[in-house]
């Protein structure tokens, strides 16, 4: 295994890139769906091997303790989503919402997005990471506009404009980081490499770093969907194909947050630089409170869960902003659980919207009666995302609130308020969706339940038991995050 170790990051990138090219040529949509899932599975398998072998960091790619968690999570959710996508897309094709020509494009873009996200996570170069995140943005823009309805086009356009401006600000921040590093490290690739940046950060000019972080936080923060930069997120989630909503919420937001975290590590290594924590805490808290109140006025089911994603990204940003081993540990766990749960919810929602032929919540009723498996899947997913015990999210939210309470009680109370408000909003909606007399069309469902319940079972099980080795490892990573 070890002799192939250095090749692994390359393979993780090559598999999606090659499959994207292949899928662009493949006409048979059934085969394309299977190949998409197969390629995602292969990428996932290769990425798990990163646990056992750790290639040396090169000038462009790096595998370290921080990004392994993200890579394995990304490739896993990408795989389960591709399984869901196969059945979802087949239905879209039958109902005529999607033309077969667009399907080739869709599958190629899916793998392209995986390539871009894996590249962003694996890159050891701040510039390369920026390129990867830009590429991920462009591919998702194209996919959000896939249905070509006026609403989808508006969503894609808004996403494109806001995402590009965010990405432009992030590039300016990246250039400033290079300038800050140049005086200490010297010109060339070293001044952009993560491992060198973190090691040499104490010698950087703190003023330049401060300014750079302001741009980076705003730029990548747009991609994370932090309030007030979130305007693109609900539209993009609601109007695109549901597998893309799942990948956006579950993965792409994390990748952008990962970029912020990397820069936060550089900032905290420099004693003279501004503490990045308070900025992240305030952005996170504002996002949680804003999103929780906005949840009451949602009428579209996908839009509602998009606001819930804003809320959870707020919680995670808040946790990493608080910093320290315990809050970071809770933030990491929460990020993983949120990815799994939110994508599971979108799997359920995707099938529900297909069966009912609408995303309006007023037209969806009594799901547990008409479609028990799907209905209870949704109930379970919403209970989990609300952080009810004994799910994993309960544990991570509990850890975030208690660790905050010890240091800043006022913040913990504000965060708790946001969580309670969310609880009220989602429970009220869930009651209408899941229970009561069935309403609307009653087509039989041919959903793929495996990805949905696999995610939920993982999160439930994690709330009860996490292997000690995993806990120790997460604690170690949390320590690194500073």
């Amino acid at each position, binding site marked *: 295994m070890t002799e192939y170790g250095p090749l692994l990051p390359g393979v993780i990138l090559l598999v999606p890139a090659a499959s994207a090219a292949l899928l662009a040529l493949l006409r048979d949509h059934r085969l394309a769906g299977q190949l998409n899932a197969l390629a995602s599975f292969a990428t996932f398998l290769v990425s798990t091997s990163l646990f056992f072998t750790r290639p040396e960091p090169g000038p462009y790619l790096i595998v370290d303790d921080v990004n392994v968690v993200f890579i394995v999570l990304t490739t896993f959710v990408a795989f389960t989503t591709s399984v869901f996508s196969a059945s979802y897309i087949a239905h879209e094709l039958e109902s005529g919402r999607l033309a077969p020509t667009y399907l080739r494009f869709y599958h190629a873009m899916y793998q392209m997005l995986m390539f871009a996200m894996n590249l962003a996570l694996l890159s050891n170069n701040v*510039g390369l990471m920026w390129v990867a995140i830009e590429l991920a943005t462009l591919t998702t823009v194209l996919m959000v506009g896939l249905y070509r309805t006026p609403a989808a086009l508006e969503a894609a356009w808004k996403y494109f404009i806001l995402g590009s401006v965010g990405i432009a600000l992030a590039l300016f921040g990246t250039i400033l980081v*290079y300038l800050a590093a140049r005086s200490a490290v010297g010109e060339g690739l070293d001044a952009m490499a993560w491992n060198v940046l973190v090691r040499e950060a104490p010698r950087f000019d703190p003023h330049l770093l401060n300014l750079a972080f302001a741009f980076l936080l705003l730029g990548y923060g747009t991609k994370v969907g932090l309030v007030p930069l979130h305007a693109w997120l609900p539209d993009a989630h609601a109007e695109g194909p549901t597998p893309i909503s799942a990948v956006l919420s579950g993965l792409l937001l994390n990748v952008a947050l990962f970029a912020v975290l990397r820069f936060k590590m550089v900032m905290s290594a420099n004693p003279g630089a501004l503490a990045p924590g308070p900025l992240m805490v305030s952005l996170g808290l504002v996002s949680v409170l804003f999103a929780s109140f906005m949840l009451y006025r949602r009428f579209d089911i996908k839009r509602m869960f998009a606001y819930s994603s804003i809320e959870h990204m707020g919680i995670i940003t808040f946790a990493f902003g608080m910093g320290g081993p315990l809050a970071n540990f809770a933030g990491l766990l929460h990020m993983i659980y949120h990815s799994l749960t939110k994508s599971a919810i979108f799997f359920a929602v995707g099938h529900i919207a297909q069966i009912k032929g609408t*995303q309006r919540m007023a037209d969806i009723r009594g799901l547990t009666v008409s479609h028990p498996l799907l209905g209870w899947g949704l109930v379970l997913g919403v209970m989990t995302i609300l952080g009810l015990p004994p799910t994993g999210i309960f544990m991570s939210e509990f850890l975030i609130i208690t660790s905050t309470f010890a240091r800043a009680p006022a913040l913990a109370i504000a965060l708790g308020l946001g969580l309670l408000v969310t609880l009220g909003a989602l429970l009220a909606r869930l009651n209408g969706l899941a229970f009561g007399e069935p309403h609307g069309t009653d087509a039989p469902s041919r959903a793929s339940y495996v990805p949905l319940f696999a995610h939920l079972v993982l999160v439930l099980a994690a709330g009860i038991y996490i292997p000690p080795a995993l806990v120790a490892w997460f604690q170690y990573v949390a320590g690194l995050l500073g």
Partner: protein
Amino acid sequence: MDRLALDVAHLLAGGLVLVSFMLLYQDRMFGLINIFALHALVVSLSVAWQAHIQSAPHLYITAAIALVVKALIIPVALHHIVVRLGIHRAIETVVGIGQTMLAGIGLVALSILVMLPISAEAGTLTREDLAFSLSVILLGLLMMISRRNAVSQVIGFMSIENGLILAATAAKGMPLVVEISVAFSIILALTVIGIFLFRIRERFDTMDIHALDRSRGGQQ
């Protein structure tokens, strides 16, 4: 550093800010596109000059890309789109030109105040170029929020990218990967924009972003 080298670099970067201001007060579509071509020309000259004084030949590639793609191909294509789709030739503004220009002056002052003290260590040339490029970026943002139609928003966005290229070249010795990627991403971005412009036209009778707002679905 050679006094002349510094002065020319300064002149070109300052010129870019000036052209950004010219973009702000255009009220005709073709005028706007032509001024954008000028913007790209100035940035390409500026990058070429940096390549010369830093003896960094790879920057000539960036300059050439800026010249060919942004000063020639994109303006021609935009001309074509405007004619083919019969887009309104007059540009609607959200705020009056006067206020926009005043806000622009404020933004330039702000970026000089922010950048000059902070980057004192980085050397005169880098420092001033960074201040100018931040001005160009902020002016581009201002243009994006003060214009209603899609073409001028796209041009505003591309002028931001020009400002970024200026910043990237001013950061001496920054690895090639970034410059190429910026140029490359612009080409990518343009294909997206092109697709979108056509799709928008396909579905709506106007390229006015407000028409998009009217059709926003799903919310209520």
